[in-house]
């Protein structure tokens, strides 16, 4: 009797698990009429611009939007590409210019030359084929803790940052593990060229207090007072002005110009809702611009957008530098290897 019961129990468990495993690996079918929008995690959170934009758009156009939070930007792209055989998303938000090549190679995006593009400065049109359209941008910059560094000591250029007086005063980020860290690596290549960037890094080794794994730990160390300079975005002080009412943290503007990261939005060729998708993209590039700029701490691309006063503490650099996506994709592996060799010596 007992044996029988045991047998039954385990058979039941087995059947249950097997059923579950089949349902897990089964392919779900594409659903209904809603517009499916993939965006990176921070865009969709309560804190991000996503929820407010979707609500307003649904109200104005009567289109149901399903905003899917798909991890960080890299994870989101991996997800879209891995779903190529069974596509779900109509619109994808947040692929930056420096990672776009992989998306182009996958050949999943639909060209869309929006009429709004005329309001967007041409240096932001990073994709000449308009598969990805810019919706916001930021500049990498060093942020200064003015309570720990006198005004006359604040560096004015990348070149001046290697001065021995900044020994152990700078927190950097590893380009192998962080997009902000990668931003600085590209910035130095844009400024010093392929021949010069490694000697800048060689000289910076002494000045870097540490090179962290990601932006979060770097900025955390910085606000804990470990060092007066940190690699971040030129818009970082906006947060401190808005929520902490302090102007202690300021952006150091460099005369060589600042490297730019541009976030793009694209429509998938597989979408069967192209008209609505285009409406949504146009909405992002016009009415949603202020919401995006405020929530993302980035600059709006549409030159008609008026920014609040807090953005006065995030001065736009006079010169924005960027690199062609294709050149980047071709050389990135080599640059990272060279960088690692120099930095681990």
């Amino acid at each position: 009797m007992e044996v029988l019961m045991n047998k039954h129990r385990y058979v039941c468990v087995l059947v249950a698990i097997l059923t579950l495993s089949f349902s897990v690996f089964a392919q779900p079918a594409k659903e209904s009429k809603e517009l499916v929008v993939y965006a990176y995690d921070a865009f969709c959170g309560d804190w991000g611009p996503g929820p407010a934009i979707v609500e307003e758009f649904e109200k104005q156009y009567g289109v149901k939007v399903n905003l899917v939070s798909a991890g960080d930007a890299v994870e989101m792209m991996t997800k879209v590409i891995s779903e190529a055989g069974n596509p779900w998303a109509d619109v994808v938000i947040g692929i930056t210019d420096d990672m776009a090549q992989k998306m182009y190679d996958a050949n999943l995006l639909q060209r869309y030359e929006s009429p709004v593009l005329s309001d967007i400065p041409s240096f932001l049109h990073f994709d000449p084929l308009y598969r990805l359209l810019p919706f916001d941008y930021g500049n990498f910059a060093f942020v200064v803790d003015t309570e720990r560094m006198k005004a006359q000591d604040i560096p004015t250029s990348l070149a001046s940052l290697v001065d021995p007086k900044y020994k152990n005063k700078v927190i950097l980020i590893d380009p192998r593990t962080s997009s902000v860290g990668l931003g600085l690596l590209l910035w130095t290549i844009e400024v010093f060229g392929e021949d010069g960037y490694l000697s800048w890094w060689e000289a910076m080794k002494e000045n870097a207090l540490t090179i962290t794994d990601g932006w979060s730990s770097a900025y955390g160390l910085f606000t804990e007072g470990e060092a007066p300079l940190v690699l971040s975005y030129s818009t970082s002080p906006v947060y401190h002005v808005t929520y902490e009412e302090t102007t202690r943290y300021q952006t150091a503007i460099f005369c060589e110009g600042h490297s730019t990261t541009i976030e793009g939005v694209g429509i998938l060729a597989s979408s069967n809702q192209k008209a609505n998708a285009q409406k949504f993209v146009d909405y992002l590039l016009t009415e949603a611009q202020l919401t995006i700029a405020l929530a993302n701490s980035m600059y709006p691309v549409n030159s008609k957008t008026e920014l609040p006063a807090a953005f006065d503490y995030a001065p736009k650099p006079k010169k924005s530098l960027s690199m062609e996506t294709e050149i980047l994709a071709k050389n990135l592996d080599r640059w990272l290897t060279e960088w690692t060799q120099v930095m681990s010596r």
Partner: protein
Amino acid sequence: MRDDKNMQYKRFYRVMPLPSTMVLLLLFFVPLFFTLSSAFVTEQGFTFSRIAGVFTDPYTQRIMLFTLLQATLSTLASLLVALPGAYLIATYSFRGKRLILALSAIPFVIPSILVVLGFVIFFGNNGFLNRILMTLFKLEEPPLSILYSFPAIILAHTFYNFPIIMSLVSSYWEHMDGNCETASYTLGATKAKTFFSITLPRLLPAIISAASLVFLFCFNSFAIILVLGGGPRYTTMEVEIYRQARMLGQTGSAAALSLFSILVTSILLLWYNRTQKRLALSETYRNSNRLIEKKPATLPGKLLALFYTIVSSLFILGPIASVVVRSFMASSSRSGAEAFSLKWYRQLLSLERATGHMNSALQALSNSLVIAALVALCTVPLALTLCVAIRKKEKGSLLELLGMMPMTVSSVIIGLGYYLISARIRGGLLTSYSLVVLAHMVKSIPFVLRTILPEYRKIPNSYIHSSLTLGAGPLRTFLQIELPLLRGAMLTGAIFAFALSMGEFNATLTLANSSIVTLPIVMYRLIGSYNFQGACALGTILIAVCTLVFIVSELAKGGKYDR
């Protein structure tokens, strides 16, 4: 009749590990297989060249050597700090003993970024220790430069791991029969001689078991090594895997590197397992006949115990306390100076309009609690069934290796595997919850296995044989003889599973497509939007919840020999 019984016996032990194997298969081996197989696939087709390249590349070899070196040193340092503590806990009864044990799993629940920040707040250039010294001795520059060096890596790993060893070894030690030691004293051996030739060899199974956990943990460490080590000089395999997989999008190379790691760690694990099994077979189980003394007898003994307690508490509590203190700070005025404030806690409880992610904190807390409780409840039986099979089967060590595998594989690689799953499933909230619970279980199984197995191996075969001879079936023997003897180990295992689940971040985010918020997820979002103090407040809640759960379970475990 006899044959029938034999069949029943065999079938029981064959069926036992099936559920846990299924869970591991579904949420670990299948996705892992698909990810790792990309190491052999190129545009030209099947190839071994990638693997061969990784194994012969001097750069990869150097990184592998460094990874092994730092993991070995960290494990040794953790053992050195942990064993005196385990001795004190196993030998004496004193106030606060349960609390110390309760604190031991806390480093697990704090995301590594907060541990790093805690370290910086405590040991950093502008940290607590340095500021005290600067005020005391009127110094201009911070006197201690502990961080951003190789020793800092070892220090942080020791902080993370010595409590685990202390807790696992002391729980084994407490249940060890004291008669051998008494006999040794009677025969005239000194205390030191008795310790080194009797006690230490008998403790080895537990020590090896705990050390293997710590080793794997340090082997895959990431943020701590980069931030506290000071940068790329100290590169581990995990960083390289991350670079290939995430920055360059080359899954194939990442998979090849990961296979190299898995191979090395598996060889080490197999060796550990064998040693442990051989040692454990010679040990017998006693329901604690050890004499628990009230206090150390001699004055030097007392002083030593006191010194150790103070130093180790400072060491473990310093960084944790830093996180707690930070959570009560907020800049209150225009000047930006920070002062004591309950702002974050008021926002958390919705007593004050919350800014940003604080909105979802309460929801996250209840999600985390439900998930962690489910994980603890489900993982222990699963791991237990694995233990039964590992002990009974001839090929037990293979099964043991499989159970430990989730710890040997880089989290980046597991993450890629979870993409395969999440790209295929678009179920509702319930599916997301189930997947998250299952993934957390997979992550906890190695820990629970390592907690229960050494205790389980101590149960003499004669107990089971007697029970079977007297007519009880294998199930009844298991439920009425073996289970009660394992109560303590099961509780410890449940604690670890609970803590690991509370602190888990990556799998939750990937598998639930962010539709489920947990405390670590909200913490990362807060940090990502400049709110470090808010994140510390959530960290403090995590710490408080876990301490509470641990104290309760320690009390439940205490039982008759806790005086």
